[in-house]
């Protein structure tokens, strides 16, 4: 079963995840001005919310993580050498 953990310290309350999630998994907690998970059972782990969140404030646990075949190891190695 999917579990979503929100890092409330990181969340800037922009509401992008609320708007972007196709299954209305999130709602804004107006009092705190933070997102909150209200329908985790409808999360299909598309991770669109991760792509849009400017604060990387969420973590999805126990999901199918798609094989990342697109990572070019030679490019990654070159970047690691620079950083």
């Amino acid at each position, binding site marked *: 079963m999917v579990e979503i953990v929100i890092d409330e310290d990181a969340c800037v309350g922009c509401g992008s995840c609320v708007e972007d999630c196709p299954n209305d998994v999130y709602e804004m907690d107006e009092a705190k001005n933070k997102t909150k998970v209200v329908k985790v*059972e*409808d999360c299909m782990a598309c991770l669109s919310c991760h792509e849009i969140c400017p604060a990387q404030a969420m973590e999805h646990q126990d999901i199918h993580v*798609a094989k990342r075949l*697109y990572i070019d190891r030679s490019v990654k190695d070159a970047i690691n050498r620079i950083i």
Partner: protein
Amino acid sequence: MNGEIEEIRGTFKPELIPAATGGNIDDYEKALHTLMKFVGSMSSALEQVSGRGANAIVYQAGKRMGHEASKLMEKTDDLEKAMGELSEVLGQEFYFEMWKPSSQDNYTVERGDETEVKLLFMDCVVRQTLRRTGLPQKGPLCYLLYGYIVGAVEEVMDIRGKLDIDHIGPNACLKTLTIKWSGK
């Protein structure tokens, strides 16, 4: 020759079916990335030249591929069985499952002479290729896959089918497959 490239030298005899593929995992990885780049740029060029018409062209090509790939599959009227066969045709690289929102009791929804089922694609080589080449999803390459799925289902179930994209994400994409029973 370039010192970094390891040349393979040996004797080659004509053979009907080679016993094994050559190379190691790094060779496969490099080949995969080269192919991804080629296919990605072909897809974006197609879109630039033909505009949105590109989607329709590759959809038809995909459909033909789907029909061909499923010719030897067992025919069935049972949608769940057909999804199992589709999964065999698509293989691990297009790993999908049927999906439903929590408010819905069954995976299938009947609407007159149509049945709908939502498919959640988790692993997808097309998505990987697009991300590799920095291209947006829902372009011609995605339509090739949609056509392929529809062609395979039409072949296995002997019906008319259609696929709509509900949502595209970096980790999974949701599609609705509609089966038209009167199209038999």
